[in-house]
């Protein structure tokens, strides 16, 4: 049996189609969250820089920009974390099942 046949069999497996769809949706959702957060931040700086310069409270000179910027750094870390968690767990488990089925 040629490799192409194996690929075809995997491709036709509904499990594969559902994995691709779910993983794709998950990856694109997270990407859009990341892009929206970053370009939102950039546009805020470009169009209304004063807003981020406002102090968080009257008791401190710390501006909203600081928690905003640090928040973006944590967001990057958090989003990569949940993606890896799900991809290395759930998605990889389904992938192994699909490969095992194709092998039979």
């Amino acid at each position, binding site marked *: 049996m040629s*490799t*192409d046949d*194996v*690929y*075809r069999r*995997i*491709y036709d497996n509904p499990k*594969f189609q559902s*994995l*691709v769809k779910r*993983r794709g949706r998950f*990856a*694109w959702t*997270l*990407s859009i969250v*990341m*892009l929206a957060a*970053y*370009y939102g*931040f*950039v*546009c805020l*700086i*470009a*169009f209304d*820089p*004063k807003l*981020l*310069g406002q*102090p968080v409270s009257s*008791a*401190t*000179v*710390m*501006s909203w*920009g*600081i928690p905003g*910027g*640090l928040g*973006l*750094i*944590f967001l*990057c*870390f958090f*989003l*990569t*974390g949940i*993606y*890896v968690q799900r*991809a*290395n767990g759930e998605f*990889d488990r389904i*992938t192994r099942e*699909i*490969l095992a089925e*194709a092998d039979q």
Partner: protein
Amino acid sequence: MRALRSLFAAAALTAAPALAFADSINGEVHKQPTNYIAIGMFLAFIILTLGITKWASKRSASTKDYYTAGGSITGFQNGLAIAGDFMSAASFLGISALVFTSGFDGLIYSIGFLVGWPIILFLMAERLRNLGKYTFSDVASYRLSQTPIRFLSALSSLTVVAFYLIAQMVGAGKLIQLLFGLDYLVAVVLVGVLMVLYVLFGGMLATTWVQIIKAVLLLSGATFMAVMVMVSVDFDFSKLFADAVAVHPKGVAIMSPGGLVSDPISAISLGLALMFGTAGLPHILMRFFTVSDAKEARKSVFYATGFIGYFYILTFIIGFGAILLVGTNPAFKDAAGELLGGSNMAAVHLAKAVGGDVFLGFISAVAFATILAVVAGLALAGASSVALDLYSHVIRQGKATEKQQMAVSKVSVVVLGIVAIGLGVVFEKQNIAFMVGLAFSLAASTNFPILFLSMYWQKLTTRGAFLGGALGLITALTLTVLSPTVWVDVFHHATAIFPYKYPALFAMIVSFVGTWFFSITDNSAKAKAEREKFFAQFVRSQTGLGASGAVDH
């Protein structure tokens, strides 16, 4: 006005890691007294890394071992190495300098370098690992004609590597003058020779471990500095900011965006260059093939994101610490009240302020080690483009033996070393501020579109990828020459023909539209065959079936 200009200059510099150096590169650098502690620590680093190279040389015989460390690097180690590629001396000194001079703006720039990583993870990392073997051109040319696609990706990779390398070499020369009190030429030759030794004998394994060691040293040093800064303000961020605002010449303005990205087009273009340029840098992409499978590739990005993010938080604290502990101390300033050695020295002076001469020596040695580690990665990426793409596929049409190909690879490394030293000498007194920005823009508008569309778009054909990628390359190069950074700053014309500093937004549109147009209008039989091969590539990219594994000897 002067302050404003230098602010803008600093902004342009920090646009990309090595760019941050341009301040010290462009200005007159004053050779400092010879620093023996720093030289001693640096020698220790060299001895350690050469020892690793010797160890690695015994494990780098086959092609797979040489280019990918046999796929034996773990996700955690690779994450550190990737972070090391990003934590250049320039981003350490440059971003802390930008925080020192304008506060919050430093944070804006550092974030730009981080945000590309989640996107790479979500959309590219596992497909890249599942499809490729040695370089990203394996992926780009997976179902397309090998010769044109590999030719184009090798050409753009070598261009990217060359610009990046020039920036690093010149930066190394200047840095050594500042930190060690050695000659520029000595520094450039030393960097070139060590780079060749690491790569020639140790391949990817040595290159990776040099990067890991440096990353650990740099993270430890920066952590110590940030902790000492926080000790001085009783671990109270409010106090840190309040004290900084009280002593900074710009006062409370350091808490808000300082007009670095006042123009939305430039801001978005820079954001695109940073985000997608990262996903097209050959020396970064090759690191995805050093791990055993997609699982480890994902972990690499997770750890890299964590380390890079942590590092940028540290540089932010270090920059504010420098405002408090360096900016207020006349011992670190010249008669005119400027920082000794320029504002890029803020973190170095802070090292002395919090840790004395020994720690200053340590940070100086680490800063230089950083450049070495980055150029080694660049040299390996360049050599693999020449040997695997140009020689093996374009010239020999896939008929070269492993032995011949390794020989070409080793010759390329030596030639690259000589060229790098030559370029370092030639560009010593040139304005090179645009170079790393250009490298990111080229990567974003040539490598990234081809790579991304080859993985995601079934209708892509060889003709579309080649013409679209070539158009992106030409557009990015042309717009950079016509932009203020080259037309005005290098050629000294009064006004720029292309008004924006970063071409990525326009070049990426040209590249994507060109690729789309020349693909959909391609009705040849070959194009049809290429589209039919997509499904097999798709299954492999999703499942990893048939992917090159860790043990493939």
